[in-house]
């Protein structure tokens, strides 16, 4: 059997935690090999070791049978290893070509950068793998899915043979995910080998040949994907049975908590992102907002939370007009917000977890008094959230947020927002990057909010999640409300059509 990558007995400890504890991982040539594990299991750490970003404490790495020492990403490049990071590393006001050749610019007469021939080559590679990118487009003008293809091209341009994808689908729309799966299949058929980190078992089932599971830094096993099922993989990963279905009591719908009336909001591109939009959310319900990404969801959420100015229209919370209230007052009057981008909005990455857990309440007792912080109270609050939301890190409340794994950062934010005990919780992609066990738990907590007579406004690109959790579903398209349906009386098909902009009754 020919292995292109052999990682043997890899160990890496961080202060307070062993992220990789004697892990063994082998990649065959031409396979798609999934790497599965709970949040904080050590997947990203293992791949960062393979890519030379982190040095292991011990262990052996062999590439194509030869033992190597990957001391930095340049060495990885030379060995034909490429990596697409979960958060892309692109220069926004550069073109695609400029981004791709950054660091190895082809020279004309040894002096001038030869953009033209580079663009030509990028075009060829792009066509070969069905990537479909325009070499001259600027990064800031293209979608997230396209940016990811640029990252893929970056690897291919450098002749990478071993491709690492760290949670590539977390930021993609369902359509883009399908595309990506196709691209990955193309890549292996051209002889590349792929390592895929994902929490979505469906995706593993769809493309992967084998799957290696790690749990709390330890190697659990490797299975053939064809001869196993999702439940089995989930069990290996968390060590218990997982229920994919959400238990929900019948709904007890109450008064209106939040209503928006005739809202007009500008998008980043300075055109109307939300058009004459009206919606109300009741106590005791989870209202799902479904739609293709970029159809007004962000504008709606930011208008309600106060992050974006409203051009016209009104927003009422518990009957009072909050349209022009500052953000802090809105939070105090009962709005909590799980933001879409955990690292941009949700966390101060250089603060410890405990400091992050009081981001909205640091200036209220008991967390501070007369302008002086109360570290003991802050610590207690953080410990409570860490405990109930299972936020894993090496150093508990003192861990710097940046050092947490992506999923654990997300869990910390969700915990903080639910602990605010808001009247309405605005949850945008709340389970992005979470493992199935954590998703199960977070869903349970969201339903608990509803059962306690609070409301949840759930914005998600995943139809499954929307259908499973919501009582009612609002469908948006192009900044307009297409319609609202009861979750129990609809199906994916109907919602899909409405997401495409067809109103009820308009269909033939």
């Amino acid at each position, binding site marked *: 059997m020919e292995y292109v990558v052999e990682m043997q007995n890899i160990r890496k400890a961080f*202060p307070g935690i062993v992220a990789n504890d004697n892990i063994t991982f082998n990649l065959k040539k031409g396979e798609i090999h999934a790497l599965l594990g709970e949040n904080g299991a050590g997947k*990203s*750490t293992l*791949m*960062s070791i393979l*890519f030379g*970003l*982190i*040095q292991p*404490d011990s262990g052996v790495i062999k590439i194509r049978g030869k033992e190597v020492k990957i001391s930095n990403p340049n060495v990885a490049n030379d060995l034909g290893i490429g*990596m697409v*990071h*979960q*958060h*892309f*590393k*692109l*220069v*926004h*006001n550069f073109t695609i070509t400029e981004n791709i050749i950054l660091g190895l610019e082809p020279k004309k007469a040894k002096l001038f950068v030869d953009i033209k021939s580079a663009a030509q080559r990028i075009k060829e590679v792009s066509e070969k793998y069905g990537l479909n990118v325009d070499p001259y487009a600027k990064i800031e003008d293209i979608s997230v899915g396209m940016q990811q293809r640029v990252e893929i091209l970056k690897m291919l341009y450098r002749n990478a043979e071993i491709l690492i994808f*760290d*949670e590539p689908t977390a930021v993609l729309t369902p359509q883009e995910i399908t595309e990506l799966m196709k691209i990955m299949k193309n890549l292996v058929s051209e002889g590349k080998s792929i390592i895929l980190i994902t929490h979505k078992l469906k995706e593993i089932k769809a493309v992967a040949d084998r799957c290696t599971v790690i749990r709390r830094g330890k190697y659990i096993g490797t299975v053939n994907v064809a001869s196993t099922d999702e439940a089995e993989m989930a069990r290996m990963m968390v060590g218990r049975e997982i229920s994919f279905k959400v238990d929900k009591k019948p709904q007890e719908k109450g008064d209106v908590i939040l209503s928006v009336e005739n809202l007009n909001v500008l998008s980043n591109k300075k055109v109307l992102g939300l058009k004459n939009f009206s919606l109300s959310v009741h106590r005791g319900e989870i209202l799902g907002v479904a739609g293709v990404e970029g159809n007004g969801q962000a504008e709606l959420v930011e208008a309600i*939370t*106060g*992050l974006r100015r409203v051009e016209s229209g009104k927003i009422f919370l518990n009957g009072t007009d909050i349209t022009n209230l*500052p*953000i*802090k*007052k*809105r*939070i105090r009057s009962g709005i909590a*917000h799980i*933001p879409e981008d955990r*690292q*941009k*909005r*949700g*966390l*101060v*990455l*250089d*603060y410890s977890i405990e*400091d992050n857990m009081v*981001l*909205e309440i*640091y*200036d209220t007792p008991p967390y*501070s008094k007369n*302008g*002086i*912080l109360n570290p003991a109270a802050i610590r207690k609050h953080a410990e409570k959230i860490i405990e109930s939301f299972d936020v894993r890190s090496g150093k508990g409340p003192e861990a*710097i947020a*940046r*050092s947490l*794994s*992506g999923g654990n950062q997300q869990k910390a934010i969700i915990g903080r927002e639910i602990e605010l005990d808001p009247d309405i919780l605005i949850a945008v992609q709340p389970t992005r990057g979470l493992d199935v066990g954590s998703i199960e738990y977070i869903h349970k907590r969201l339903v608990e909010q509803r059962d306690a007579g609070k409301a949840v406004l759930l914005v998600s690109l995943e139809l499954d999640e929307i259908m499973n959790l919501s009582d009612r579903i609002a469908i948006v398209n192009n900044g307009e409300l297409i319609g609202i349906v009861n979750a129990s009386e609809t199906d994916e098909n109907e919602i899909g059509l409405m997401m495409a902009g067809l109103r009820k009754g308009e269909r033939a």
Partner: protein
Amino acid sequence: MSNLENKPNNQEMEGLTETGKIKKVRIKGNRNLVVSLLAILFGLIAGAIYMLAIGKNPITGYYFILSGGLKNLERIGNTLATATPLIFTGLSAAFAFRTGLFNIGAPGQMLMGGLCSTALALTLNLPQYLFLPVILLGSMLSGALWAIVPGFLKAKFNVHEVVSGIMLNWTAYWIVYYIIPTYFKAEYLETESAMIPANASLKVGWLSSLFQGSFINLGLFVAIVAVVLIAFILDKTVLGYELKSVGYNRHAAEYAGISVNKNIILSMMIAGALSGLAGAAFYVGYASNMQIGVMPSQGFDGIAVSLLGNNTPYGVLGAAIFFGLLHSGKGFMNAMTKIPPEIADTIIATIIYFSATSIFIERMLDALKRRKRGAK
């Protein structure tokens, strides 16, 4: 530098984590101390090489720098007096850095603080116990007001504080250039102010005589109080929490309802007040009058002091005293050995270089640690 955070194009800057790339996790203070000490060591080694290169003995060179700064009480007093304005400007830079701003405007703020102190000292006549507080307050206020301008421009129009800061440095320079000769001219010279009267000077008799007539003055005690106070504000108060949140991640601060604009302006004002105090400590403390046509280098040195002190108040205190020692010892070294005093500046420059590129030293420490473990 941390102010990158505030540029519009920062998505990927903040995003560089997850996979461990640039996971710049700050690993407790003592590691930072080691880095700073190594930077100093490298600086001193580099200085030794320069001295060797010009055919001088580095051991005698360093001996005379040290004895020049510490030999007797007078020299120790002078070292501390030299360090005093650096403590203030270092604190100013550090405070700004910690809150995501780059206060390159410290020289201008220092000039305005000095100008206000000088003006007060030469116009009012109060008993000393009132006069000194009034002067210190005046210097703080004028420094703070001067720093409002870049703060406001940054908050309202996203004008980078480095650009407006540099412009304001020169504005302050020319204001001093005009006001001092016009209103506060010395008896004979056009280029400096009249002498500061004794009851308005931070140099007080008992302290000077305690240190055998050195330049040491009350500014040092004010500076130490400022160090403690700033450390307290940054680490223990709601104000510090807000300021740092805005500095580290203004998007998250905004999300949490913390006013970004208010905090940017406030942060610049506090940094400006500290630089203003540096002006008082220098012009009515260390010196006995105000010269025109000089941009105070202490304003810029504050940035270096802050870097070496790892942007922490107590680090700044230590770094400022160390730089004070080099500055006050270099003259003596030159007198005794003919080694040019510029060697000391070169040493400082090398230290700055190594502390600004501390990532290099950290890598080295990492590699060393791994090798040690491998050998076991």
